[in-house]
Structure formats: C-alpha cells, structure tokens
C-alpha cells in the first residue's frame, strides 16, 4: 500500500489558500456546556408552554406518578441532548445512533405510562388526542429552533443523525409540556397522542437534515473570476 508523495505544488497551493483566510477563531464551548444549554431550553419551553395552557396535568398527578414520569423523561432529555451535541462535533464519541436512543426513550416512556396510568378507556380517542398532538408539535417547533441556534456553529458529519437528535429532543420538550398540561390520564391517549410528538418531530428533523448545506469548494473558489 505505497502511494507516491503528495505533489508539493498542491501542498503549497493549499497552504496559500488557508493563509489567505487565516484569522483567529473562538473554539466552541465544551460539549457539557452545550448539552446543559439544550436541557435548559427543553425545560424552559416545556414550562413556558404549560404556563400558557395551564398546569392541569401536573396538579392532577400524584407525587409517585410525577416521579415515575419526569425522572425517566429528564434522563431521556439528558441523553438526547448529549447525542445532539456530539452529532454536531466531528470525531466526537458516539454511544448509539440518535434514532436508536430516541426509539429507546419512546419505548421507555410507553412502559412508564402503562405502569402509571391504569385507565384503558378509549372514547373520544381522536377528538381529545388531536389537540394534544397539535399543541405538542406547536411547542416542539420553537424548542427545535432555539436548539438549532445553540448548535449552529457545529458541523454535522452525519446531517440526518443530527437532524433526528435535535428534532427528537425538541419533540421531548413538546412531550414534557403535554405531561405538565394535559389532565387526560387515559393510557391510550397518553401513549399514542403524547408520545407521537417525539417521532414526528424527529422525522421533521431528519427531513431538514437531508437538505444539503452548500459549501464552496476550493475549485469553485479558485475558478471564480476576480471581483
């Protein structure tokens, strides 16, 4: 596997082009700081949304059920926040693909809901569920936007994975808001309409991640006529 040495003219040309645009840059904040900012955004959006609509769900929940729901929810938010930050840092350690983490988080929440809410009635399933899904997605939007602002200086080597992670985390903000607000404790309602906010928001993130970021190439730059 021996290859000829790199053309010195090419190396010289690369150096020259890098030097032409060489100015000091501020390194990104530590990954932990960025992840903490994402968790704070999730909490702020969820609380803001619940304050706007009313904390009816939170008031109706007992202490045990609140612990059972919000501890795993916060764990999922923290894991996804770390995954989202790492997806925007080249060469960062990855525990699992964000989609896998997200599927695990949704699965965990459905199990928790099944254990915490024994009401299996399904009357008014769509009529009561649709407004919850809409409200959850409505609050996931600003959460995703704020997260994108925080991570905009990052560089995703896998844009789709980054989109899923950020979208999923925004979805978790919507889900948290619904848990604080919605007083409907029927299992089918919560397990489907509330949890659905997360995969839908992740799907939106995935689609946005498909969009190519247009970066000028060296050849495009060097081929451009002088202004």
């Amino acid at each position: 596997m021996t290859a000829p040495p790199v053309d010195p003219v090419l190396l010289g040309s690369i150096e020259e082009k890098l030097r032409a645009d060489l100015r000091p840059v501020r390194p990104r904040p530590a990954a932990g700081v960025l992840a903490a900012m994402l968790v704070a955004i999730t909490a702020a959006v969820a609380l803001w949304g619940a304050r706007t609509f009313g904390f009816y769900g939170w008031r109706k929940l007992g202490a045990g059920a609140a612990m059972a729901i919000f501890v795993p929810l916060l764990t999922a938010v923290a894991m996804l926040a770390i995954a989202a930050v790492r997806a925007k840092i080249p060469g960062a350690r990855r525990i699992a693909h964000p989609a896998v983490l997200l599927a695990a988080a949704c699965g965990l929440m459905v199990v928790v809901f099944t254990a915490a809410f024994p009401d299996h009635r399904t009357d008014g399933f769509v009529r009561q569920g649709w407004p919850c899904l809409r409200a959850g997605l409505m609050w996931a939007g600003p959460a995703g936007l704020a997260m994108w602002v925080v991570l905009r200086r990052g560089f995703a080597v896998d844009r789709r994975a980054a989109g899923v992670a950020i979208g999923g985390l925004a979805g978790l903000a919507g889900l948290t808001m619904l848990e604080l607000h919605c007083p409907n404790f029927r299992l089918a309602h919560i397990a489907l309409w509330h949890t659905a906010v997360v995969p839908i928001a992740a799907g939106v993130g995935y689609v946005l991640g498909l969009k190519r970021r247009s970066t000028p190439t060296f050849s495009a730059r060097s081929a451009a006529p002088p202004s």
Partner: protein
Amino acid sequence: MVRYQQGDPAAVTALVSTLSPQLHRFFTSQFVSRRFADDLLQETWLKIHEVRHTYRAGEPVLPWIYAIARHTRVDHYRRTRRVEDREQQMERLPETAATAPDSRGVDLEAALRQLPESQRDVVVMLKVADMTLEEVARATSSSVGSVKQKAHRAYEKLQGLL
C-alpha cells in the same frame, strides 16, 4: 491545532505538511484517481478550515480530521454522482493512483478492493494512519466494539485472500 485556531501562519504549514500525506493515502486507498484524491485533499482542507472552531483543545486531533475527511469523500462522491447522472455520461473506470510496482503491494491492493468500504476505512485508519481503536471509533461515529468487529472481519477476509 490551537495555534491554527489562533491564526498562526506557521501552524498552517506544520498541519498541512504533517497531515496531508496520510490524508492523501486515505483517499487513494479508496481506489480513486490521483487527481480525484488531490481534489478530495483540497476540499478536506477547506472544510477543516471552515469548521476549525469545532475543535476543542485537549481532544484528539486525528478522529476530528478523519471524520471531516470521510464526510468530504462521501459528499464529493454524491455530488459527482449527481452531476454524472444529470449529464448521462458513460461510466468509465477511474484511473487508480499509481502504486509501487512490488507484487506484494499489488496483491494487498487487490485484496483491499474486495473489502466493503466501511471495513476498508477501518483497516486503513488502523494500519496506515496508525490510529487507535478509540480514535477510529470517533472518526467513524461508531463504537469501539463495532470497529473491532469490522477490523476482525476485514482481517479474516484479507487472510483468506492473501
């Protein structure tokens, strides 16, 4: 890398001259033409330059560099494919990079060609770039276990082929 972020011109020379040969080898190991590898090297440096702020002092440099290099290669490949599809050009086999004429080298190259791209990447990073398992895992956005598995499968295949 930190001096490069601070805008030191000497750091540019040091980085480009130290890292370019192994990056170029990484691209030629994918059996692309010499010119194609040169283009990829240039594009990789442009990308490194654009996103140099995403590196943080104290973190390993090689996984960061190779993650960007892999991304550039995939991006370039997709772009080229799109242009080729649009122009409906006849597919031509690329002229592969010139290699040393010893028969062992040619055999190894032929054997590497048989490997799937992900396994080839892992072998090249481990054996040519001399990176650790942890560094390769970071560069390929996978776990150390997955890298070990890919390397093991690749060595098994290479053993059977050589």
